[in-house]
C-alpha cells in the first residue's frame, strides 16, 4: 500500500513539476465524447485524458459522490452522504502500436485502493492485439464500461455488482481485435486469467456471491484452482441498429488440490451474458441492457442456501428531453431516464418442498440528469425496490431518493 501511494505521489508531483515548467497552452486535453459510438470493449480507452507537454503519459480519472435517503419497510438510516469513489487513469504510448493504461480506484467506504486495470497492449494487426497485465474480464458490458460519469444513475446495476462482480479484474493475458466495414463493427476478446475461489459459495452474504472473490487479493499471485479462468466475448455493432455482445466466463473455481494432494472435487463456474445497446433514430432514446446467467457447481451435500444457478440483469432507457445552451453551458442536456432491474440469486426449487427458492429482487428507478458537458453529470433518482428472502416470504420494500454528481477530470 505504501509503495502504491509513493508511486502515485511521484507521478502526481512529476506531472505538477512538468506543468509548472511549461506553457499551460501545451496542455493537450482529449475531450472524448463519452456518448460516441464505439464498442463496449473500447471503453477503457474511450475516456478523456489530459497530456502534459511532452510527458509520455496522459492522465485522467473520474469521481462519484452521492446523497441518499432510503428506507426499508419504514426503517430508515436517515440522510447519507457518500463519496463512492475516485479513479485515476494513467495512459502511455510507449512506442508505435504499444500502449499502456492503468486505472486505480480509491473507495473510502471500502478503505480500498485497488488497481482495477493495468495492461500493456501490443498491436500486431487490427484483428490481433496482445494484452497482458491486470485485465478486466469482459463478461457482459458493464464490467468494462462502468465509469460513473457515463451513467444517469447514482447506483451501479445490482445484477452487475451483486451477482456478477463489477470491476472484476485479474492477472492475465489474452488477445483482442476489431474489424470495421462501413456501418458494421466486429470485435472479439479472449483472455486466460486468474479467477475465483471457494468464497463464492462460502461467504457472509449467505448466498452464492461471485463478488466475494474480489476480496481475495491472493488471486494476483496464486490461483485457488490452479486452472485458468477463460473469458471470451464477441460483439457486433451496426451504426444504425446498435451493438450486441455475447460473452462467456468459466473455469474451475475451487481449491481442489494442495501440495499435490487432491482435497476436493473440481467444481466449475460458468457465466453467460448478453448485452445490447442502441440509440433510437429521431427520438435519440438511448437503450442499454444486459442479462447474465450463472451456473456454479455447488456440492449436493452443502446448503441450498447457496444456489447453483443465478440470473439477472438490467435495462436502462435514457431520453434526452432538452439539448441547448443552458446557464452558459453549450449543448447542455437534460435527460429523463429509467432503470429496470431483476436479480434471482438462487434459481431452483427446494429439495424438501419442491417449491421455488426465493432470494430475488426487483427494482425500478426513474431519474433525471443534467449534463452541462458530456463528461459531467448531475443526477437524481428515485428507487423502488422489492426483495424476497430465500423462503419467498413477503418481500421487503425499499424506497430511496438519491442525488449525485459524477465527472471525468
Amino acid at each position, binding site marked *: 500500500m505504501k509503495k502504491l501511494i509513493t508511486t502515485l505521489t511521484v507521478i502526481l508531483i512529476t506531472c505538477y513539476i512538468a506543468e509548472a515548467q511549461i506553457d499551460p497552452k501545451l496542455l493537450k486535453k482529449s475531450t472524448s465524447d463519452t456518448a460516441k459510438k464505439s464498442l463496449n470493449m473500447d471503453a477503457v480507452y474511450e475516456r478523456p485524458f489530459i497530456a502534459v507537454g511532452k510527458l509520455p503519459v496522459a492522465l485522467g480519472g473520474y469521481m462519484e459522490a452521492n446523497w441518499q*435517503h432510503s428506507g426499508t419497510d*419504514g426503517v430508515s438510516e*436517515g440522510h447519507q452522504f457518500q463519496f463512492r469513489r475516485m479513479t485515476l487513469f494513467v495512459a502511455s504510448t510507449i512506442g508505435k502500436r504499444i500502449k499502456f493504461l492503468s486505472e486505480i480506484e480509491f473507495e473510502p467506504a471500502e478503505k480500498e485502493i485497488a488497481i482495477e486495470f493495468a495492461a500493456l497492449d501490443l498491436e500486431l494487426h487490427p484483428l490481433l492485439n496482445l494484452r497482458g497485465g491486470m485485465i478486466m474480464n469482459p463478461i457482459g458490458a458493464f464490467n468494462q464500461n462502468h465509469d460513473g460519469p457515463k451513467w444517469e444513475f447514482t447506483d451501479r446495476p445490482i445484477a452487475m455488482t451483486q451477482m456478477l462482480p463489477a470491476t472484476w479484474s485479474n492477472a492475465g493475458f489474452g488477445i483482442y481485435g476489431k474489424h470495421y466495414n462501413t456501418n458494421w463493427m466486429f470485435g472479439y476478446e479472449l483472455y486466460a486469467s486468474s479467477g475465483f475461489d471457494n*468464497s463464492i459459495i*462460502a461467504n457472509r452474504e449467505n448466498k452464492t456471491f461471485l463478488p466475494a472473490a474480489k476480496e481475495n487479493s491472493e488471486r494476483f499471485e496464486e490461483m485457488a484452482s490452479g486452472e485458468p479462468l477463460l473469458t471470451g466475448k464477441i460483439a457486433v455493432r451496426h451504426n444504425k441498429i446498435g451493438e450486441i455482445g455475447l460473452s462467456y466466463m468459466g473455469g474451475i473455481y475451487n481449491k481442489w488440490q494442495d501440495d499435490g494432494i487432491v482435497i476436493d472435487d473440481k467444481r466449475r463456474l460458468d457465466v453467460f451474458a448478453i448485452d445490447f445497446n442502441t440509440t433510437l433514430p429521431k427520438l435519440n432514446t438511448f437503450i442499454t441492457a444486459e442479462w447474465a446467467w450463472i451456473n456454479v457447481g455447488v456440492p449436493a*451435500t452443502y446448503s441450498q*442456501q447457496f444456489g447453483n444457478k443465478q440470473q439477472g440483469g438490467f435495462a436502462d432507457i435514457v431520453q434526452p428531453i432538452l439539448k441547448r445552451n443552458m446557464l452558459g453551458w453549450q449543448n447542455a442536456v437534460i435527460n429523463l431516464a429509467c432503470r429496470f432491474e431483476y436479480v434471482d440469486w438462487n434459481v431452483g426449487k427446494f429439495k424438501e418442498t419442491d417449491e421455488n427458492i426465493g432470494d430475488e429482487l426487483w427494482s425500478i428507478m426513474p431519474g433525471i440528469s443534467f449534463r452541462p458537458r458530456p463528461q459531467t453529470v448531475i443526477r437524481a433518482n428515485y428507487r423502488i425496490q422489492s426483495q424476497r428472502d430465500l423462503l419467498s416470504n413477503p418481500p421487503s420494500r425499499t424506497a430511496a431518493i438519491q*442525488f449525485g454528481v459524477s465527472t471525468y477530470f
Partner: protein
Amino acid sequence: MKKALLIVLFLLGFVVVIQSCSKLGPAAPKDEDLLDGPVEGLTNEQSRRFLAGDVAFNDEVFTPETGLGTVFVATSCGSCHAGDGKGHPFTTLTRFGQIDETGNKFLHQGGPQLQNRAIPGYMPEQIPFGATFSKFTPPANTGLGFLELVSDADILAMADPNDNDNDGISGIPNYGNLPDYVVPFAHAIEKTGKYIHRFGKKAAAYSLLHQTVNAYNQDIGITSSYDPVDVYTRLAIDPEISTQTVNDVVFYLQALKAPIQRQQNDPEVQNGRMIFDRINCSTCHKPTLKTGASSITALSNVTFQPYTDLLLHDMGPGLDDGYTEGTAKTFEWRTPALWGLGLSTNSQGGQYHLMHDGRAKSIEEAIQLHGGESTGSRNKFIQLSTLEKNALIKFLKSL
C-alpha cells in the same frame, strides 16, 4: 433574470425533496403484524444489548473460515427463524437415537442431532443404522423471555401427571440434568438433582442460554466457551464465537416482544375464543401465564397470553416418531405456544408448516392431527358447524 429564476426553482425543489424524502419511503408494517422487535421500555443500555444480539442473530453468517461446520444444519441463526418466526422445511432439523427416558444410545455416533449438511470437501452426517429419528421445524422466537420467567411452581401447578381431575389430560414437566454452565433459576424446584426444562419440542432445553449454546453448536457447528466440543471431531476446540456474543443473543431472545393479538374486537374472533375454551383446547394451550421478577421492566411480574402450559402431553400414536428427549416418552410433546400462529406464513414461505415437523399445511389439519390426550378436543372440533370452525380458525389466526 431567467437564469436566476431557474436557480431559485432548483433550490426550492431541492429543499422540498430533502424535507419530504422521509415520507416517500414505504410505511412500516403495524407492530401487531411483526413478530420481531423488542419489548417496550428497554433502557438505552438494554437497547444496545438488544441490537448487538439482533445483529449476531440475524446478520452474522458463518463461513468455514469463521467456524461453520464442518457439518451443520444452517449457516446463521436467522436462516432458521426468518423475522423471528417459525421455520421452513428447508431448515427443519433431525434428531435421532433416543427411544425412552434412559437416554440417547447413539451419542457416540453423533446423536442427538443430525448435521445433514457439510462444508465443501466434507461429507455430512448420516442417521446410524437402527436409530429412530424425528424432524423438528424451528419454532418462533418471540416472547421466549416471558416463558423463561414462568416459575417452576406455576408450571407444577398446571401439571396433573396422574390425571387427578379425570379430564383425560395429564401434563407433566420434562426433568433433566443441567449442563455445567447453566445456573438454576431462583424459582427452580429441584427433583432428585434434575430440573424442569421448558424449551424445545420435547421441553429438553432448560433456559435460553442452554438453547442458544446448543443451537450454535448443533445447528451451525460453532463452539463456544460454554460448549467447546466440536460436533464433527467430538474434540474440545477453541471457541469460535465470543462469550459476549452468546450472551447478547440470549438477551436478544429474552427481550423480544410477545406477539400482539390482532382483530381482538372482531365478534367472530371473540366467538372463536369462546369455542377454543368450550372444546377444551385451553386445557393445555393455557391462555394466560405470569412472569416472575426481571431486570427488564416489561417482563417483570406481568401476565401474558402464550397459549401453552409448557408441559408434556401424550399426543397419540399418530405423532409418535419413536424418538424422544429427556424424560419425555416418544409420544409426548410439549404444548407449543400458539401466540404468533397467524403470522407463521410470513416466515414459512407464504404457507403453514405446522406441528413439530411441519407436516400440517393448515391450522385445521394441525388440529385434526391431535391425538392422545387431545383426542376429545379434536373430536369436538370435527363436530363443530362450519361457522364455528371458521370462527375458531379466525381466532387462532388472530393470535
